[in-house]
């Protein structure tokens, strides 16, 4: 079974995000970059399938030079090779163009299952996996929390409000990973060392035969509105404090 896992390098969840004064994006200085956590679930699931059924796991990532570290992280976990799509034109590109580039890269390699995170934690767009499936003309199952391979098809669980769906899909197929799918492994040290020597193909848009033409673009990045200061309700009696809280929620915050 040949598996592809798409990964994106994103700022660490704890990183201090500062918006550039001109609104053209965020300040990158001092940011610790990590693999998008949802993509990590995809990589882990890919490795588990490889351990069970054999085959190769290829990591594909679109990003600047630093994205190579994230590809190496996935290789350290146990993936076999990487494709690094590095093209300045793709920086900040929309999901349509990113997916087009990924699709172009993936078309050239055998793929039974393609994993993506259900969304990336930086822009929270959640589109790449779906668009990629469309470009490849294959089915997609999204927000997957459990996956079983049965012959030439997969059965997955997709939680929805108040229930969960058991979905069966033919292969090849795009799967977007949701939290709960697995616990990503910690890379072993021999794994980390071997990852340094695993092959990573670097490609640009032209090399993939893709023309980058954004359909949507981020006009401006703005900092979130400043949070108003909190209020501590004082009083002797809990009942009195509760009354005051209810009053404030209704009259000041207008939420009840």
């Amino acid at each position: 079974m040949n598996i592809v896992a798409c990964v994106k390098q994103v700022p660490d969840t704890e990183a201090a995000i500062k918006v550039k004064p001109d609104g053209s994006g965020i300040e990158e200085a001092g940011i610790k970059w990590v693999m998008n956590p949802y993509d990590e679930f995809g990589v882990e699931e890919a490795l588990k399938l490889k351990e069970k059924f054999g085959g190769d796991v290829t990591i594909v990532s679109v990003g600047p030079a630093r994205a190579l570290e994230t590809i190496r992280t996935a290789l350290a976990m146990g993936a076999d090779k990487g494709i690094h799509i590095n093209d300045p034109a793709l920086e900040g590109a929309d999901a349509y163009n990113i997916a087009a580039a990924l699709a172009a890269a993936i078309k050239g390699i055998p793929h039974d299952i393609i994993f993506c995170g259900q969304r990336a934690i930086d822009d929270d767009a959640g589109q790449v996996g779906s668009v990629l499936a469309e470009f490849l003309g294959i089915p997609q199952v999204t927000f997957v929390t459990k996956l079983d391979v049965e012959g030439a098809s997969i059965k997955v669980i997709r939680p929805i409000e108040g229930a969960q769906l058991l979905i069966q899909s033919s292969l090849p197929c795009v799967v977007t990973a949701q939290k709960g799918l697995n616990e990503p492994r910690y890379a072993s040290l021999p794994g980390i060392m071997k990852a340094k020597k695993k092959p990573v193909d670097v490609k640009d848009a032209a090399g993939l035969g893709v023309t980058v033409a954004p359909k949507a673009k981020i006009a401006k990045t703005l900092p979130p509105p400043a949070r108003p200061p909190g209020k501590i309700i004082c009083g002797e009696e809990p009942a009195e404090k509760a009354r005051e809280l209810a009053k404030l929620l209704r009259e000041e915050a207008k939420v009840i």
Partner: protein
Amino acid sequence: MELSKFSVGNEGREVFWNAENFEGLLFAFTAIAMAIFAYGIYRRWQMWTAIGKPEVRNDQIKERIKLLLKNGLFQIKTFRDIYPGIMHGLIFFGFIGLMFGAAFDATEFHVGEPYGFPFLIGKFYLVFSFLMEVLGLFVLAGVFMALDRRYITKPERLGYKGEPDNTPDDAIVLLLLGGIILTGFVIEALRIHVTNPPWEVWSFVGYTLAKAFAGVDNNTARIIHKVMWWTHTFMALGFIAYIPYSRLVHMITTPANHFMASLKPVGNIEPIRDFETAESFGAGQLEDFTWKQVFDSDACTRCGRCQDGCPAYLSGKALSPKKVVQDLKTYWLERAPLIAAAKKAAGKAAEGAAPEMPAATKAMVGEVIDLHELWACTNCMYCMEHCSSSIEHVPKIVNMRQYKVLTEADFAPELQLTYRNMENNSNPWGVGSHLRADWAKELGVKTLAEDPNVEYLFYVGCSGSFDERGKKVSVAFAKILQTAGVSFGILGTEEGCCGDSAMRGGNEYLSQTLMQTNIEVMNGYGVKKIICTCPHGYNTLKKDYPHFGGNYEVYHHTEIIANLIAAGKISLKKPVDGMFTYHDSCFLGRYNNIYDQPRKILAAVPGMKLAEMDRKLDKSFCCGAGGARMWMEEHDGERINNMRTDQAIDVNATNIAVACPFCLTMLTDGIKAREKEEKMASLDIAEVVWRAMGLEEEKPSADVCAPTE
């Protein structure tokens, strides 16, 4: 009464009385015993040298001889636990003395008398005889104490989880020892009974015992004597022959282990130097240990001192340091002969052919040593501090953890998260690294980037930077330094995790990365002196950083505060309320021998009422957070921190003074678990001192609702 060349004024005895024509037989049997002994040692030697990586343990000979004399000859480590110390001392010193006695006898017989200068005569003989009696009684008393401990009193530590771990060998050895002495006394008594010289009252045991043979005629006595003499001789020779095949081998291995003890700083873990090409890291099999680490287990006498204060064991976890060493020994006894034979075969085969080693039949880590045992260790160092055989348990544990973490990447998920947090944000909690210096925002503390010309770097550490309680300690200590006019700075957001938990949790790769990052920053500023409030940072900066080019004078804040008080730089004038007890942090106490300073500081606080817990100083009970346990769930047994809190409650303490942020967290949690937070609190020494300096009005915690004017 037989005729004798001895008389009053010329006291003595016929050495080897009644043992005519014994020499040929005795020499033959002695030769056989020695041969059995020598063969056993040869076999053992092959086993000692069969397994393990090279390690130098014969450098600094002077230091090593001192250790050998101190702990081998003078039994200092054994005497640290007084009752068993005396028990062993009676046997040990008694037997050494008696061996000299036997040697004197032999010399008298083979040299003194034949060459005309007998020396076992007169007053010397009487004193000599008297001493031999006393030493014989010593050994007997020791043997009885040992029998009592092993078979009657049965202290917990001579077993595992309530089951005694006695072996037939234990009984054989004690019976041999007792038998040699008893038969010695009997043959002496029989000789006295037959020869009956008046001065033998000096041989008071034999003299008294002789009375028991009062009705026995001389010929019968001589026959019994002969039988007993040979019994005595066979037991003594048997003893010698038995040494390499029994627990008696510790007569060789234990002193050897004292001689070969680590001369490195306490708690030293040898850094892994080759990450790039090695295929396996840490110790997954016996072969991954050094030969000395393997040898250790043969020096173990199963005395159980290690187990007596092991927080993991006492809290009901699977780990017992004794069991770990014994299990490794059992595995070694299984593997070593096979490997020794394979090496021998390879030696005979064509040169250049790599010896074919017998494959391991089980996983050392996971099967020989259970993973629950492996991960229960807090690295508190109690076992090593108190081991009367100088066995080094903790590095073995860390090496086995390295195997699980680095080679197999198979370890607790919560610890994986901790390591990821350290990787991404250089702290175990994973709080954004940009928030590291926020605790100091309002204090006017400068970073070295702002002013590198300061005397001390205050290395705050992760707890002091991110933990809410820890931050208060950092603030209190910074204020103390500022008040005392000490020139210091911090690294601010350039500071990183010290690496202690990563190292002791087996993630040597991560710990070295963290250490090297800090060293680069510190060396960049030309840092020379460092103060730490966390004993873990203190210990690792002091002892592990030099491995990687970080050489600093490192101080713990209790050392600095004690000096400031002594020099009159700060004055403690405001009395503190409550009953205090001081909890010794392992990494401060056993690792760095800092016991006095915290106590001196507390004693300098006006109105200080201090009660010591039973487990204190070098016998202090760990809080449960060392050795990366701070970051792990504690599923098995009782919680260690709650047990320690109970010990503080037992001495009616209302305040547990600590000098370590991990202890602070653990004991604060313990106080909560025991529902004592209304009556008890845990405080860092710096907080106690800052309060006692009386320079700041303490704000009551509920002041947000205080009426405003």
